[in-house]
């Protein structure tokens, strides 16, 4: 692999592609229990990411830049949350990128979401996809899996986590206003988190 920075750029380019492709689905999920803008928000944010420069010396620098762009361009709840996640992950990601280092940085990113959002697993948010993904990633690395397999397991865990938000009653974000009526719908942020984690597999091995 050429450079860690190139890998990071490829990851977010793939994220931009998939959130645009799934824009309508994300918006429809948000219409059901939110305000119907999640698809547009992420499309706008990642379009800004890819149309700007994603160059940088290291993957960490690229990801901090991505986080800043998301914070500057998305707005809403997801902008600061995803933006902080990418920033925190970028800051924590050391060179040379190793499996252990990647998993720890990913975890740092996920923890930034919970900290800023004052939210925890089971609140029916993006965390319900991100936390299982983070655990799967760390577990795979511990078991000695290569990047490809670690990403596959993380993606699978994120998807399962997103689906598992369906029966939950939301305790954070806009969906919490609905009370019991929020149950029966997948959380849009969890769905987009699964897309972001899923995009890891397409970006190739990071270490």
């Amino acid at each position, binding site marked *: 692999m050429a450079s860690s920075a190139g890998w990071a750029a490829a990851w977010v380019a793939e994220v931009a592609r998939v959130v645009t492709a799934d824009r309508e689905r994300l918006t429809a999920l948000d219409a059901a229990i939110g305000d119907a803008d999640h698809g547009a928000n992420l499309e*706008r944010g990642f379009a800004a990411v890819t149309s700007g420069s994603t160059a940088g010396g290291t993957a960490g620098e690229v990801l901090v830049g991505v986080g800043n762009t998301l914070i500057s361009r998305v707005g*809403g709840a997801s902008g*600061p949350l995803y933006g902080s996640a990418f920033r925190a992950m970028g800051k924590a990601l050391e060179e040379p990128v190793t499996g252990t280092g990647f998993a720890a940085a990913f975890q740092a990113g996920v923890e930034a979401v919970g900290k800023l959002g004052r939210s925890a697993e089971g609140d029916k948010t993006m965390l319900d996809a991100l936390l299982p993904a983070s655990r799967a990633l760390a577990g795979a690395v511990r078991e000695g899996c290569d990047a490809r397999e670690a990403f596959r397991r993380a993606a699978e865990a994120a998807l399962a986590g997103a689906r598992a938000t369906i029966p939950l009653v939301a305790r954070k*974000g806009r969906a919490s206003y609905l009370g019991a009526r929020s149950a029966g719908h997948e959380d849009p942020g969890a769905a987009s988190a699964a897309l972001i984690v899923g995009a890891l597999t397409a970006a190739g091995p990071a270490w």
Partner: protein
Amino acid sequence: MKKLMNEAGSVVEDALRGMAAAHPSLRVEGGVVYRAEAKRGRVALVSGGGSGHEPLHAGFVGFGMLDAACPGEIFTSPTPDPIVAATIGTDGGAGVLHIVKNYTGDVLNFELAGEMVEGVEVASVLVDDDVAVLDSLYTAGRRGTGATVFVEKIAGALAEEGAPLAEVARVAADVDARSRSFGVALTSCTTPAAGKPTFDLPGDQVELGIGIHGEPGRSRVRLAGARELAEIAVEAVHGDLPFQDDLLVMVNGMGGTPLIELYGVFAEVEAFVRGKGARVARSLVGNYVTSLDMQGFSLSVCRADDELLRLWDAPVSTPGLRWGR
């Protein structure tokens, strides 16, 4: 979807161009709406939030109310950057009050902006008046809706008089604490981006306890008369903070409901208020905190005192609210 617009992506930008052209008293720069003539040496008020609630917030920029508003995309909180610019740009040396409606997005973006600003004293007040949301550990807390108009008007009057930041912030929080709101939708709104109604509502049903972003409400009932719907809103608000003495009452349209219907609702509300031994001391009837083209209304009530009524009556000159000058 039928809307007067160029493209879904340009709705906010086009409206800001229109506001700038229509109101010489405003200046639009970097997506922020400022007073054309900044005030100096007084506390400045900055608010903002997703667009689609017009005249809130940009229509409340002007003498006696806001110093700047940061409109985000439709129903999407603004990012920290314009909030930072507005905070620095309006500070006249006496500090800046952020008026933030309680939504995760608004809270987080204002919070990040507050951390990014340096050299300006910033205070923040959270508006959370919507009784349809239970304020508990299991929600993001009550939404900020109609009471925002009360907070912005009264805090704006106080700032104009030269009160210090802590005092303006305290009174703003007091107004919020004294205010409650409840909304009823006859139809969903349609966002330009989605192009179809956010929720489906059968022709014979109304949605109760709606927010201002097309979020579905907490329950549905059969379409009833203005009196019955007014009573539902009155009881929801009164049940949470009993009416008492002098009230500031707003019957607010959601954007697609004409004034003739809102006056009809107000007639019922006023009768219920009297029936409960309280008094409508001041009122607003019209479209103030809207949800795009949604049909429906919300009721906001503030338990005022003489000082708050005095500040309410103080001169204000904004596109959306104007009297006394």
